[in-house]
């Protein structure tokens, strides 16, 4: 099946809204788990923007970039969830306002 003819700005707008949602969630939530989810949303929105651009010029590059974003997301989630486990184990909480040892 061929793709649709959709104004590029609209796709990008969707990506932008998703990105903003992720960013807002990142600032809003105190739980590390939700912060990681917000990050996923943000990465996903970036991937959407790539795909849109790839569709605009009918090039494979957009999907290649999507693959790289996917890789980064996978890596980030693996390490991030590992940290979630470890922090829960150490501090008995996931509240990032309480975990401020980075200050030192």
């Amino acid at each position, binding site marked *: 099946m061929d793709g649709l003819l959709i104004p590029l700005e609209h796709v990008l707008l969707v990506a932008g809204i998703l990105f903003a949602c992720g960013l807002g969630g990142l600032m809003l939530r105190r739980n590390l788990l939700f912060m990681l989810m917000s990050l996923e949303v943000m990465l996903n929105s970036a991937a959407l923007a790539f795909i849109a651009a790839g569709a605009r010029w009918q090039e494979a590059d957009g999907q290649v970039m999507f693959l790289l974003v996917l890789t980064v997301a996978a890596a980030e989630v693996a390490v991030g969830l590992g940290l979630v486990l470890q922090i829960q184990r150490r501090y008995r909480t996931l509240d990032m306002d309480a975990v*401020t040892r980075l*200050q030192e």
Partner: protein
Amino acid sequence: MNLALAAIPGLPMLSATLLILFGRQIPRSLGAVLGAGSVGLSAVLVAGQLLAYLDTPTVVTATLWTWMSVADFSAAIAFHIDGLTVVMMSVITGVGFLIHVYSVEFMWEDESFSRYFAYMNLFVGSMLLLVMADNLLLLFLGWEGVGMCSYLLVGFWYKNPANGAAARKAFVVTRVGDALMALGLFVLFTDLGTLDIQPLLLAANLNWEVGGTVPVLATALLLGGAVGKSAQLPLHTWLPDAMAGPTPVSALIHAATMVTAGVYLVARLHGLFLLAPATLTAVAWVGLATLLLAASAALVQQDIKRILAYSTISQIGYMFLALGVGAFSFGIFHLMTHAFFKALLFLGAGAVSHCLHHELNIFRMGGLRTRLPVVFLSFLIGSAALAALPFTAGFYSKDGILLSAFTAPGIGPWLWAGGLLGALLTSIYSFRLLFVAFFGEAQTEPDRKPGLPMAIPLLILCALSLLGGLISQPLDGVLPDAGHPQVPHLIEWISIGVPLLGVAYAYYAYIVRRPSSSPAEAGGDSPVEGFLFAGWRVDALYNLLLVTPYRTLARWCQGEPIDHFYNGVVSLNRLCHRGLAALQTGELRWYATTFVIGLIAVVAIVLRSAP
């Protein structure tokens, strides 16, 4: 021959080394033998040189070894013996030996007996090096050596901080002159390419025109050195304070030898000075101004040694006057006679204080004429010679200087009149000292009489002060001079008569109308006397102009002003660090928020700059 020459300065230096190394171990008597004996042996060797020279006046030049040789510069340890050197050597070792003998008794009870003789011997060695040197670098070595010995001996009784301060003052003030002299040597070397005295004089005669810039500059710088060493205006302030040292030191260093080094330097390099008439005139005026200032200051001093110190400055002023008017041989003649009578006076003063519980104020002496007859005789003859009464040694030399000054072209009569005024003052202050200290009622009773080691040098010096004027110096061919100056008889009679007038006035003021009470301790009763007492307040002037600003600057620098800048940088960094550290809260959400703010700002900038 070379060995004998080398031994002349070598013996005192060897003795100094021995005394420094083993001074604590050897007994006093051995120290005395070493100290005085080495100088005595030198004196014998010098006498041999003197006789040889008198027999056949030949210039001896002896190179011992090469001192240094760098590129086209080389300096040797080499001696140059001519008439001038022989005279200087004779004075140094002769008077020096007498003072050493005298010192044996004077310093016998001092705990640092051997240290004293070590310094004294080192001084004699350095001084001999100075006068015997064949090149100016070696001369400068001796020059600095005597300066150092002067410092060490002025501050000999270092436990009293005032003595240390006087020593430092002497050192620092003469250092000004020494720096100038070093600069002068640099000028000479860069311009003429050598520092050996004889080739230097030859080259100067060939290359320099009379009154050129370089000759005037070089000689002016050398004059700076001479002025510093010889305590002439404006660098004379150290000498009165230098009386803090033991009295024989004052006799040797600050009367007979070291302070006349400037005179020797000018005489030795007269060839250069003749090429710079402006400098030579400056020499004469410096001498005149100094002799008047110092003589007037000597009028009101109460400390016997300070009187003699100012007198020394004044007499060296006469020598400079003589050099300035081209009467070099009279300058050297006065140097020699002055060495005799001033050493005599200083040793006499030392004997007085030695026998009088270290009393130095002449108004607390009195009546010593009958109590210390030998010392009285010394002072009588010394003062007469100092005042240039007829037929004493001082008479011949000072008369020669005054008459030579009169014949100087242009400014002659002025110089003569000034010198005459100085002579009047000289006779007044010297006989004031004599009359106040030795006549009248006794204020302090002596507790002992000088022993033989003190008395014999005094008597020998008495004889020299009386008869020294008859010595004819073997200066022919060394210094340019044309016999006795031809002046009107009236001038001659006035020159002879004025000192007698001074004596008469002193007799009237201090014997006939003897002041009933001694004047106030710190100067005189009137402002003028106070002004003179403080040596025309030159010290205060220097304090105001140089010392205080320097101290202020030093204090300012002590606060390390430049560090303030760097401390400021440090403080700023620390402040920034605190600010940045405060940003680092460790709160992830705060980081994210700031991140977003930055992002918004960047996008806003992109939006603004995009068309």
